[in-house]
């Protein structure tokens, strides 16, 4: 039985467990029907031309973990931003871990989607926001059909959340292969500020396939800083579909740090509905072996006087494959726009591949859109400069790679996170740079 067949047939059993009057019952039924018709995306789909899920889909995934797993905090401490105080929403094999989490209802809601879906007091929020910005794409439909758990974050207006919120999905390897479908909903009220860090972490070499969907709503003047850390085991694959709906004067940034995993696909979609929105998309990808990272971004400019800034850096070693497919869509009404897209790549090996495809579709006539894409090796002149100062070739290359990726790090607003990413990069490049980063 193929994974698709397995999913479709188990949907009925899954539905049976849920209350029929769930506010999202109808959405689920529609979504599974649509998934049944369309199936998983293949390379024949233009948007999936360079990324194949074939191998990932061949595993015999468990759809629900057969047993509850526990983790000791000390064993997984390193995956948290443990040196600062944070809210935490932690899942182990898709099941909420109250032991590792630190949620709140005190002036804001940082809790579980399952709670929000089942309790009456959240019903208005669910009805107003759930699945409202997510698009009916195949894998998103699949997630919607099975959506029952994930992070639920609601920040009321004028609230500045004083500590970052961490969402961590662990998989333990208690199943030979596990499919996870977390569903996150983040609603940031007018003039509210929030910082979120999201991570998926497999703790074994068993196969994991995570099909994650996150919806973020930024109301007027809201400020959202979202960080994705993708440094997973070589047996873990991820499709992350994130949809961000921005109202006027809101500023939203998403930083994606892709340092490991099997196949990683990021679908990052911004929709600017009001004037003076700013969307910031930044990424650093450093991969090797046969790893595959695909950034598929969309910034949809609907209103005038807005800005968007995209800056993605990639370093590809061994036989790794990178994809950057960045689309900027400018509606006729979106005048006086300033859209910037930059994608720079270094191929550190002859076998590494990068497929870069910037797409600009502009229907307004008074806009400034720029894009630049480079693919190259390390600058020989710079390398010679460092080596002439006695720095050996390997360290000199590392220093240059660090410098190459560095400006994306500049905009990370949480100092401890910046330090952590710096360290990850140094480890990733495989050298001690001789000074603390």
């Amino acid at each position, binding site marked *: 039985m193929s994974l698709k067949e397995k999913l479709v047939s188990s949907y009925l059993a899954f539905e049976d467990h849920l209350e029929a009057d769930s506010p999202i019952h109808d959405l689920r039924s529609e979504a599974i029907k649509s998934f049944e018709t369309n199936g998983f995306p293949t390379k024949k789909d233009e948007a999936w031309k360079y990324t194949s899920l074939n191998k990932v889909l061949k595993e015999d995934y468990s759809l629900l973990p057969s047993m509850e797993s526990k983790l000791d905090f000390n064993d997984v401490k390193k995956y948290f931003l443990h040196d600062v105080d944070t809210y935490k929403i932690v899942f182990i094999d898709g099941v909420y871990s109250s032991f590792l989490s630190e949620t709140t209802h005190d002036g804001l809601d940082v809790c579980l989607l399952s709670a929000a879906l089942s309790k009456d007091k959240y019903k208005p929020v669910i009805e107003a926001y759930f699945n409202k910005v997510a698009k009916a794409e195949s894998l998103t439909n699949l997630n919607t059909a099975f959506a029952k758990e994930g992070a639920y974050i609601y920040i009321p207006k004028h609230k500045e959340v004083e500590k970052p919120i961490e969402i961590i999905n662990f998989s333990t390897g208690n199943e030979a292969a596990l499919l996870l479908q977390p569903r996150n909903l983040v609603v940031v009220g007018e003039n509210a500020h929030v910082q979120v860090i999201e991570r998926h972490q497999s703790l074994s070499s068993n196969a994991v396939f995570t099909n994650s969907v996150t919806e973020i709503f930024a109301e007027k003047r809201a400020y959202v800083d979202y960080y994705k850390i993708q440094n997973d085991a070589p047996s873990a694959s991820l499709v992350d579909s994130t949809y961000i709906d921005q109202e006027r004067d809101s500023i939203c940034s998403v930083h994606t740090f892709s340092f490991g995993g099997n196949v990683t696909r990021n679908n990052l979609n911004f929709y600017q509905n009001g004037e003076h929105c700013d969307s910031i998309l930044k990424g650093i990808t450093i991969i090797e072996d046969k790893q595959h990272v695909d950034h598929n971004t969309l910034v949809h400019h609907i209103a005038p006087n807005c800005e968007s800034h995209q800056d993605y850096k990639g370093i590809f070693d061994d036989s790794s494959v990178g994809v950057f497919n960045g689309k900027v869509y400018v509606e006729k009404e979106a005048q006086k726009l300033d859209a910037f897209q930059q994608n720079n790549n270094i191929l550190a090996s002859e076998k590494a591949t990068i497929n870069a495809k910037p797409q600009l579709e502009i229907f307004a006539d008074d806009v400034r859109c720029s894009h630049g894409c480079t693919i190259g090796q390390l600058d020989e*002149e710079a390398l*010679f400069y*460092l080596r002439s*100062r006695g*720095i050996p070739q390997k360290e*000199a290359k590392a220093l240059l790679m*660090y410098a190459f990726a560095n400006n994306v790090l500049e905009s990370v607003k949480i100092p401890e996170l910046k330090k952590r990413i710096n360290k990850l990069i140094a480890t990733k490049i495989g050298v001690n740079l001789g000074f603390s980063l």
Partner: protein
Amino acid sequence: MLQINNLHASVDEKDILKGINLEVNPGEVHAIMGPNGSGKSTLAAVIAGKDEFEITKGEVTLHEEDISELDPEERAHKGVFLSFQYPVEIPGVTVTNFIKTAINESRKAQGQKEMPASEMLKRIKEKADLLEIDRKFLSRSLNEGFSGGEKKRNEIFQMAMMEPKLAILDETDSGLDIDALKIVANGVNKLKTKDNAVIVITHYQRLLDYIVPDFVHVLMNGKIVKSGTKELAYELEEKGYDWIKEELV
């Protein structure tokens, strides 16, 4: 110290150096002058080990050891330093962190321990003062957004920190105003001892008023066509290079 015999070098099969002979002894200052495209910067890069250039004939020895097959970092470890005409910008790496890495990598290569942090700081302070470099400057990203003069001063600061046996200054005077030129020249002179040597590559005699050479060589079309003392530099300043061309014919 440095002995260059019948050196030929090419890039992309184009001959640039066509038989250079040069001997530099400890305690000496040599100036290499010549018109644009004569091969001055190539000579500097070949001594420092840039692998873009292929040595097709001849040899380069340092302390009687052939260094022409060595990597640039190995030459640096043996005391060769090149002050770049166009120093490269390295965002995200501060001047201080860069020089620490450079010094400690060189020490590691010589089997020495890392320099203790306190000693490193003391030296950084001392050398920054020597070149009248503002402390704030040291925590900026290497060469990023530096003015031409700041870049050159920073090159000599690195030289001061690394204490090379043989320093090659490739057009260190270009882009410098007279005050910066004096500071840089003063720095170089203070670092001069009887055991080290300096090769100054320049277009203009101006720098040689401050860093006084023992020998002046004229490089033309990949060859040293004339050598003399510092008076030769004045003559070149006054008369240009044409008279040498004529002499050669």
